[in-house]
């Protein structure tokens, strides 16, 4: 694997772009016309080669005002995306987001793969939005959560798939991670990685 890491930017040259990558790249290119975003959770491990599929990709955006969300709704609709909800008008979807619920978005008339989008809800969400990492791929780029946070968060979730994603990211990035940032992330979530050999 050839990764060129510098600051909050990682270049992944020569990567084959999967149908899932293409979907996410098309979505975020449309979304970022109206709002910053960050892709979190399982897709992060998949982006760096984890051998598993997923049907949904988690995306966080800042808490928006209703009129700003209406602009997001419009740009996505015009960009060929639809909302997987019986109530798919902007104000109905905004009410869901404002109640800390996720909304799902797919290409018009499809439902897999889809984006599960939420407003940033807490300090960690706001941190990953602020310190997001730009992944440069052939044909586009995607902002993802910082790797140490993603590893610690997966350990915190604790499901089988989550632990395996954490271990995978650790194995891929262990030589590039800043020990202070990794330890701070583990402490922030109150988790330890020793059992899996994760940690510096």
């Amino acid at each position, binding site marked *: 694997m050839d990764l060129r890491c510098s600051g909050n930017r990682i270049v992944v040259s020569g990567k084959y*772009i999967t149908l899932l990558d293409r979907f996410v790249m098309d979505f975020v290119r449309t979304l970022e016309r109206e709002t910053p975003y960050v892709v979190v959770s399982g897709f992060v491990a998949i982006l760096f080669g984890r051998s598993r*599929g997923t049907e949904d990709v988690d995306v966080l955006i800042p808490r928006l005002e209703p009129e700003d969300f209406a602009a997001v709704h419009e740009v996505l609709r015009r960009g060929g995306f639809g909302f997987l909800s019986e109530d798919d008008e902007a104000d109905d979807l905004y009410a869901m987001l404002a109640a800390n619920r996720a909304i799902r978005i797919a290409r018009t008339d499809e439902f897999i793969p889809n984006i599960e989008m939420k407003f940033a809800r807490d300090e960690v969400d706001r941190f990953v939005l602020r310190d997001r990492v730009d992944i440069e791929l052939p044909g586009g780029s995607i902002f993802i959560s910082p790797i140490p946070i993603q590893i610690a968060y997966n350990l915190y979730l604790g499901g*089988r798939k989550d632990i395996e994603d954490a271990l995978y990211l650790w194995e*891929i990035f262990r030589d590039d991670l800043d020990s202070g940032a990794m330890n701070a992330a583990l402490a922030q979530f109150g988790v330890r990685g020793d059992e899996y050999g994760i940690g510096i």
Partner: protein
Amino acid sequence: MELEFDRVSHRNERLAFVRRYAAWVKRVPNEEWSRQQGALIDSFIENTRNMPLTCREYLDRVADRRQDLR
């Protein structure tokens, strides 16, 4: 007791596989690991397009899965 042993053993095997697979990904060029991973992911996505589900049924399934996890 035997079931517990199997569970732990199975988990350790899976974690060992993750480590071996990550080591292979790090060894080979991006073109190689991503081509093989792409075959898996693309076929998964293509197959989902043949699922005889409506959007409503899909969302109900997702909700059921979430309920099971709680």
